[in-house]
C-alpha cells in the first residue's frame, strides 16, 4: 500500500499490539537518553512541515527538527513532476499568505514553479538547518512519564521532541494498483507521482490508466509526444473550464510594488472559491448550475454524441474532486488518441486486456491511479498513552478533534488530519489555520512546561458527532465511490463547510477542551 512505510490497510496496529512487548518498546525509548529532545519534532518537509517551521520560528520557537524521508524538500510538488503537472487552484491562493509571491507566471502555475516557491520558502526563512533528510519515520511513540515523543526511522535512528507534528502529507504514498496480471506486463511502467524523466515517449504506444486530476493533466502532454495514447477510463469526472493565462508583466510589477493589491486579488479568489462550496459541497440550485457549466464545456468541445456520453459523469458534481481543464477533451479527440471505457479485465505481457475481448498492446503504461490514502489507519504506527495504537482506534474510520489533535495522544498535532479536506478551496488556506492552531498549543506546552496537553475524550466525541451529522447532507456522501470515503462509506476526509467556517473553528484554542498535566 505504501512506498516506504507500513501498510495501514494491513492494520499495523494488530500485528504491533500482539508483539508489543510493552517492556521492549519502553526499553528502546529508555536506551536513548542521548537524544536531547527538541521542542518540536516535525515529520515531513512539504508545504505543511515547512509552513509549520516558519510559523513556529515567527512565534519565537526555534528548537525544531524536521524529519524528511526524501533527500529534498517539496513533498507533493517534488514527487509530482509528470508532464502537465500544475495546481488547479489559482497560485495566488495556492500559496501562503505569510509569504506572497508576486511573480507567479500564470494563474495556475506548473509543478516546477510551485516547487521553486517551496525552495524559496526554505531559503527565505532559513529552514535548511532544521531539516534532516533521508529520515524515514517508521514509528512515533509517546513516553508518558517524560512527556516526550520519539520518532524512529527505518534505520533505527531516533529523534525526540516535546511536541510532535505529523505533516507527512495526505497524498504522499503511492503504488501501482492491484490490477490482475500487473506483474506479467513486460513493458515500461510509470506512476504519475514518480515520473520517469528518462523515458522517451517519442513514437511509443502508451496506455494511461486513470482519468482523475493527474490523468487529465498528463494526457494532453502525452498526446503531443507519444505515437499513440490509449486512455482507460473507469468513471468520468466533471470537468470545468480552466481560466488559465500568463500573468502580464505589469501585473507582477503591481503586486511587487503594492502588496495590498495582491492581497486584494487573493481575497477575490478566496471568496469566489468559497462561493463554489455552495455548488460543490451541498446539493443546491448552484449544484445544477455548476453541472450545466460543465456539460456546456463538454458539448462545446466534443461533437460526437457517443464520446460525449462516455465522458458524461453520472454522479452529482462535487461528490468526487471537480476537475479543471481546457485541453483534456480536445486531446482525446486527436488522431493519435483514443478513449477506452471497456472495463479492464487484466494486464498481460504485452498490454491491457479489456472485457470486450481485445488486447491493447502498448510499450508503456502510465498509472495515474492516485494515492494510497489511509482513512482508517496511520501511515506508520503512532503510539500514545497507555500503549494505545492510533491505527487500531481508527479502524472504523479516523477521528480527531478539530482535525488536529486526538485524545490519548498528547502534544501531537496533525496537518491534514481527519475531516480537514477542502473540496472547493486551497488546501493551504486550511493549512494556515492548522499551523496557527498548532502554534498556540505548542506555545502552551512550552510556556507552562506541560508534560501533556491532551484533548478530552468527550470533547472530541461531541465534535465528531456534529461533523458526521453535517457530512451526511453533503454531496460527498451522496452515493458515489471516491477516495474521500472508506469502503464502508465513512467520510473521514472532508470538512463539511466553508473554509471560513473551518478557519473560525481553528481560530479558537480553548484550554478547557484539554486535560493538562
Amino acid at each position, binding site marked *: 500500500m505504501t512506498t516506504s512505510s507500513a501498510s495501514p490497510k494491513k492494520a499495523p496496529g494488530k500485528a504491533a499490539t500482539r508483539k508489543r512487548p510493552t517492556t521492549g518498546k519502553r526499553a528502546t525509548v529508555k536506551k536513548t537518553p542521548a537524544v536531547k529532545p527538541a521542542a518540536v519534532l516535525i515529520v515531513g518537509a512539504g508545504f505543511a512541515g515547512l509552513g509549520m517551521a516558519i510559523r513556529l520560528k515567527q512565534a519565537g520557537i526555534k528548537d525544531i527538527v524536521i524529519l524528511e524521508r526524501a533527500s529534498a524538500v517539496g513533498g507533493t510538488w517534488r514527487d509530482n513532476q509528470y508532464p502537465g503537472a500544475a495546481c488547479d487552484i489559482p497560485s495566488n491562493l495556492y500559496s501562503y499568505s505569510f509569504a506572497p509571491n508576486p511573480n507567479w507566471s500564470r494563474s495556475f502555475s506548473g509543478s516546477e514553479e510551485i516547487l521553486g516557491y517551496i525552495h524559496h520558502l526554505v531559503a527565505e526563512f532559513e529552514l535548511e538547518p532544521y531539516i534532516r533528510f533521508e529520515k524515514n519515520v517508521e514509528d512515533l511513540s509517546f513516553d508518558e512519564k517524560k512527556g516526550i515523543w520519539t520518532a524512529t526511522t527505518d534505520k533505527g535512528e531516533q529523534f525526540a521532541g516535546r511536541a510532535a507534528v505529523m505533516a507527512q502529507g495526505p497524498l504522499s504514498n503511492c503504488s501501482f494498483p492491484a490490477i490482475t496480471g500487473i506483474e506479467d506486463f513486460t513493458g515500461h511502467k510509470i506512476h504519475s507521482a514518480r515520473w520517469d524523466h528518462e523515458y522517451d515517449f517519442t513514437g511509443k504506444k502508451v496506455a494511461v490508466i486513470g482519468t482523475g486530476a493527474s490523468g487529465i493533466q498528463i494526457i494532453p502532454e502525452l498526446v503531443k509526444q507519444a505515437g499513440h495514447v490509449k486512455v482507460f477510463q473507469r468513471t468520468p469526472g466533471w470537468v470545468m473550464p480552466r481560466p488559465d493565462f500568463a500573468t502580464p508583466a505589469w501585473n507582477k510589477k503591481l503586486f511587487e510594488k503594492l502588496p495590498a493589491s495582491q492581497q486584494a486579488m487573493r481575497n477575490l479568489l478566496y471568496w469566489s472559491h468559497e462561493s463554489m462550496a455552495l455548488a460543490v459541497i451541498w446539493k443546491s440550485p448552484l449544484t445544477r448550475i455548476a453541472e450545466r457549466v460543465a456539460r456546456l464545456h463538454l458539448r462545446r468541445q466534443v461533437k460526437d*454524441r457517443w*464520446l460525449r456520453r462516455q465522458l458524461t459523469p453520472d454522479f452529482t458534481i462535487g461528490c468526487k474532486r471537480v476537475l479543471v481543464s481546457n485541453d483534456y477533451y480536445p486531446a482525446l479527440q486527436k488522431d493519435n488518441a483514443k478513449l477506452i471505457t471497456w472495463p479492464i479485465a*487484466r494486464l498481460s505481457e*504485452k498490454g491491457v486486456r479489456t472485457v470486450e475481448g*481485445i*488486447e*491493447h*498492446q502498448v510499450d508503456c503504461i502510465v498509472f495515474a491511479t492516485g494515492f494510497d490514502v489511509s482513512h482508517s489507519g496511520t501511515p506508520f504506527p503512532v503510539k500514545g498513552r497507555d500503549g494505545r495504537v492510533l491505527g487500531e482506534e481508527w479502524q472504523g474510520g479516523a477521528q480527531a478533534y478539530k482535525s488536529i489533535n486526538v485524545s490519548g495522544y498528547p502534544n501531537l498535532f496533525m496537518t491534514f488530519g481527519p475531516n480537514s479536506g477542502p473540496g472547493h478551496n486551497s488546501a493551504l488556506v486550511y493549512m494556515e489555520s492548522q499551523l496557527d492552531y498548532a502554534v498556540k498549543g505548542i506555545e502552551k506546552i512550552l510556556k507552562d512546561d506541560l508534560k501533556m496537553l491532551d484533548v478530552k475524550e468527550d470533547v472530541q466525541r461531541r465534535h465528531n458527532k456534529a461533523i458526521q451529522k453535517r457530512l451526511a447532507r453533503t454531496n460527498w456522501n451522496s*452515493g458515489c465511490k471516491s477516495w474521500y470515503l472508506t469502503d464502508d462509506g465513512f467520510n473521514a476526509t472532508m470538512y463539511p463547510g466553508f473554509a471560513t467556517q473551518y478557519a473560525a473553528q481553528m481560530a479558537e484554542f480553548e484550554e478547557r477542551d484539554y486535560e493538562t498535566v
Partner: protein
Amino acid sequence: MASIDLDKMLTKIKSTQWALSDIDWDAPGAELITEEQWPKLKDFMADLMWIEHVGARAFAAMAKKAPTDTLRQIYTYFHAEEQRHANAEMALMKRWGMLEGDEIPEPNINLRLVIEWLDRYSDDMPVYVLGTVVPMLEIALDGALCTFLLETVKDPVCHQAFEKINDDESRHLGVGFSVMEMQGRGKTFIGATKMLAPLLDPRLMLGIASYVPLLNKMRDNIITMGLPEERLYAAMAKFEKIGGRTEDGRRNPWFQVIRQHAKLVVNRRNHVYHVPVDGMVKLTGLIPRRALPAVPSWVRELTYQPTA
C-alpha cells in the same frame, strides 16, 4: 427459487474473463464449412453479430439507469461482454472468409432501425423496460440461434468460441431473470401502474415499432437457414417458464407484456398480429439506406482483431 446474490455474481464475472486471443483463429477446421452452407451462414452470422451488438448497447443504457452500484457494474461488464461476442463472431466470419476486406457486415434494415432507436432513446428508458426485453431477446435469439449454429457447423474453433460465449450468456440470463423478479417485488420496487406508464411514451412506441418487426424478420431468416421455426418458439417459451417461475416474477407487469407478445409471435394463425407485422417487415425493407442517418460512432468500435 431465490434470487441470486448479485455481489457474488459480480465477483464471479470479474474473475472469469476471456479474450479473443485465448482462441487460435487460424487453427485447422475452417474447411469443414460446406460450400452449400457458406452463403447462408454468412447472412446468419452477420445477423447474429448485430444482435449481440444491439444487446451490448441495451446493457449500456441499463448501466446508466441501474438502481444499485453492483447492478451498474454488472451491466457495464455485460455491455463489454456482448461486444466481445460480436467481436468473436466477426473473427469467425473473418476465419471463414466472410468479411469483405476489413468491412463490418451491413446490418439488415430492421436491426438498423433498432440500432437507431437504441442510440436515440434507450438511455431515457426506465431500467425495467429494457430489463425485460433484453432477457427475451437473449433467450430467444441468442439461445435459438446459437444452439442451431452449433448443430450445423462442425468447425471446432466455432465450438470453442461458443462454449465461452454461452458461459457468459448463462450469467446474463441469471442476472436478467433475477432482476425481473426483483422488479416484480412491487413494494420494494415500483408499482405496476407506474411501471407500465412508459407504454404511453411515444419514444417507447417507436421502440416497439422497431422490436416487433425484428422478431418476425428473424423468424424469416431462421427459416431461410433451414432452422425449424418451432425452435425459436421453444426458446421463447423458456422465457415464459423461467420468468414466471416465481410469484414475484409473474407479478412484474413487463414480464406479462412481453410474455403476451411472445404468444402472439408464436401463434402464426393470429392474422390480426402477423399480417400487419409482416407488412411492416416488408415496408421497412423498402426504406432506402440513404434515408437513415449515419451509423452512431459506437458501431465503429467493433473489431475482429484480437489485438489492437
